[in-house]
């Protein structure tokens, strides 16, 4: 029934013309001094005919409207409609073509970056093995840089996989400590080199997640904590069951930057100081967290440290 005013609007010209003609009839009949019954009768009759024709026409109108709503084109009834139809079909075709082209370009790009990420892992592996054979200040520094390269490669892969349809999630119950420990181990050299201490005694919590993706988040957060802390400690703990906290005693985040740190490309004050920041790490963390059904948030006070909380509970997904 919402369509009634719309229909009347579309047919307003015809209705107006009809009413105008009726008025002419009535006026001329009255001027000729005819009896009122002779005037009213044909008017009522023609109004009835109009109503029946109108209802039928409106049903047709509704059907065409609902067809168009489903993005189907009803048969053209006039030359003008036919013209519109042709234009629409042409546009549709062009849109489809450009979508196809851009998706194949995109796929090529993704494919190349994926190959690239795997290619670069081989020299990284070789350097890692050979650096480990040497016990010196220099090799440790190089190893730190190598770790950073490695984490950038991980970020590329994550970035590509996030939007890919073929992303393999393995959602099941994992012991959180089995995810945190290897992540911490990855940064052991940085911890030792910067003489940062680690407060972590295991969180003893099991949750339903994907270990590879959650590892990515945890590694990114620990990486940031280590990067922006020059003295003190990093604590990994769970005060409230299900909320994993990673807290550092680093430079902190300015309160005006805090609400935006999970945005793509946002580096804030710290990022502008430190040219290495890309503003993409935490953005990816947020995206991954969203797709896993986890929540990630940050608290910080400038100069005192930052606390990232990851809520790993999830009620919306079931084990496959």
């Amino acid at each position: 029934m919402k369509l009634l005013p719309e229909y009347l609007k579309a047919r307003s010209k015809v209705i107006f013309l009809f009413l105008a003609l009726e008025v002419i009839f009535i006026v001329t009949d009255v001027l000729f001094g005819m009896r009122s019954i002779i005037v009213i009768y044909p008017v009522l009759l023609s109004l009835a005919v109009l109503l029946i024709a109108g209802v039928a026409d409106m049903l047709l109108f509704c059907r065409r409207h609902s067809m168009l709503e489903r993005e189907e084109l009803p048969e053209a009834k006039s030359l003008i409609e036919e013209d519109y139809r042709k234009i629409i079909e042409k546009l549709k075709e062009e849109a489809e073509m450009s979508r196809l082209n851009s998706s194949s370009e995109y796929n090529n790009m993704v494919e190349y970056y994926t190959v690239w990420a795997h290619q670069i892992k081989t020299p990284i592996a070789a350097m890692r093995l050979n650096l480990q054979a040497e016990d010196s200040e220099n090799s440790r520094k190089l190893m730190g840089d190598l770790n950073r390269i490695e984490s950038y490669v991980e970020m590329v892969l994550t970035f590509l996989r996030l939007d890919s349809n073929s992303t393999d999630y393995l959602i099941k119950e994992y012991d959180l400590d089995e995810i945190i420990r290897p992540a911490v181990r990855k940064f052991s050299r940085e911890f030792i080199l910067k003489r940062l201490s680690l407060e972590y005694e295991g969180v003893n919590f099991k949750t339903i997640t994907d270990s590879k993706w959650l590892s990515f988040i945890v590694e990114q957060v620990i990486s940031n904590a280590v990067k922006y802390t020059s003295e003190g400690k990093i604590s990994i703990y769970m005060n409230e069951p299900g909320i994993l906290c990673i807290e550092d005693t680093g430079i902190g985040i300015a309160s005006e930057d805090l609400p935006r740190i999970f945005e793509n490309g946002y580096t804030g004050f710290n990022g502008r100081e430190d040219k290495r920041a890309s503003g993409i790490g935490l953005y990816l963390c947020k995206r991954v967290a969203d797709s896993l059904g986890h929540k990630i948030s940050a608290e910080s006070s400038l100069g005192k440290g930052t606390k990232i909380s990851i809520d790993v509970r999830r009620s919306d997904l079931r084990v496959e």
Partner: protein
Amino acid sequence: MYRVYIVEDDKGIAEGISNCLSAWEMEVRIVSDFRNVMAEIEEFVPHLVIMDITLPFMGGYHWCQEIRKTSSVPIIFISSATDNMNIVMAMNMGADDYIPKPFDQSVLIAKVQALLRRTYDFAKGSFELKAAGAVLNTNDNTLSYNGEKIELSRNEYRILLTLMENKGKVVSRERLMEALWETDCFVDENTLTVNVGRLRKTLESVGLNDLIKTKFGVGYILEDK
């Protein structure tokens, strides 16, 4: 001596693996002709094969299947592809383990040793390190000296293992801490000092005095007198 055959086209990695396995007294051979992997295996008769998946001419999966036609020698795949599909594929082709690149030396050695231990029940060295008459056994984390056998705590074992792997060389405090972190003991410098002190006391209890010497400001050294 265990013989290990490495099929990897990246020289850096192949030599890196070779170096760290040699420290454990394993005989290592790196592939020389990628077309004749089978012939080289028949000639060398390795106890274990370490193989990359992407290789020139024929891929690792192919060689793995070829090897399985005649031999049940343990095969470890190393690859930069970390998706589950590749791991499943490797295992289905008859591999025994899978290490994603990049990996740490300690992970590689642990996996190689575990596989050798499971496959061959005869001792061939490679599970023990010797220095100054003391023998460190990796099977049961014990130290034998003059017919006496003592058990070491996890941290003591790890510290001694690292020192013995690098015997005759100064091992920095950082390297020792890294070794402990690898086994999830997230120690700081003070804890390391305490642990080394404890290890020295344990060693003294079997008469191994002054096995570990302090290099002031650098680290520790274990000399093979």
